[in-house]
């Protein structure tokens, strides 16, 4: 099973980060750096909470021989999942034409912290693609703040590769994200 993800970072404005870091809007010196730090901070935040924060387009790909499966569950450990389409091919190899399944032939079962896809009837095939989107519909302000704090930490502290022993870490990033951690139980 392989999940390929494409992320959109458009919900975060560089101007907002610059305001947080007290960098003047007209000062374009750090724009490129801040964009890269922002992507890193989002990745770190997503790893911390084990979920997709920004709008994400995903493809779950299964290439093993699948035959006569009726109730196979594909657990997708992400909240806010919307399945856009499911495609299947019956021939051998990836060059075969994929057929899009009728949405009435499968059901999306949402659980507290994950999503299952349950098929109604017997299907067989060699390759299965589940196309879905994930990510918070509206990014919570505290998640945003945590990401901005991480950008600031990387920009002002981490890129120097040096900190004074006297400075203690506030752990604000972890504290702000802890209510959103996606744990399976």
């Amino acid at each position, binding site marked *: 099973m392989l999940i390929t993800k494409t992320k959109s970072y458009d919900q975060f404005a560089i101007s907002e980060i610059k305001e*947080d*870091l*007290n*960098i*003047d809007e*007209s*000062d374009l*010196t750090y724009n490129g750096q801040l964009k890269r730090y922002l992507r890193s901070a989002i990745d770190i935040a997503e790893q911390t909470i084990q979920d997709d924060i920004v709008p994400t387009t995903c493809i779950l790909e299964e290439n093993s021989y699948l035959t006569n499966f009726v109730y196979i569950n594909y657990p997708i450990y992400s909240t806010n999942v919307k399945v856009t389409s499911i495609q299947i091919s019956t021939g051998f190899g990836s060059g075969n034409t994929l057929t899009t399944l009728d949405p009435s032939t499968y059901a999306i079962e949402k659980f507290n912290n994950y999503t299952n896809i349950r098929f109604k009837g017997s299907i067989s095939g060699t390759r299965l693609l589940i196309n879905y989107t994930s990510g918070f519909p509206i990014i919570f302000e505290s998640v945003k703040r945590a990401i901005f704090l991480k950008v*600031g930490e990387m920009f*002002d*502290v981490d*890129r*120097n590769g*040096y*900190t*004074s022993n006297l*400075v203690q870490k506030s752990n604000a990033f972890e504290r702000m994200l802890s209510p959103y951690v996606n744990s399976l139980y």
Partner: protein
Amino acid sequence: MAAQTARLTERLELQELVVSGSSYGEAIETWQTTRIVYATQQAQKGKLYSNNYDQFAMDYISFYCRYTPFLRKGTRVLYKGEPYKIHNVNTVTRNQATIIDLITYL
């Protein structure tokens, strides 16, 4: 820590002297803002005297900011609407920060 973001509250405008010519060939000197940086005001150092008789006092202020390459010649800093000369520039070792000392024009 290089710069405590919450303390970078003072707005400094870095200005460069640009010389152009009028249609009559006169030199026109204008100060143009090239960059705006936010800094922390260090202890205000008070007056700096240009001679031994306590004459010609200049206001002397020191600022701490993220690493910024300041030039001492041909540039000035506009702070709270008042132009300042760049008196001294120090880079904080391994900390990516700059301390800049400014004095008022006589």
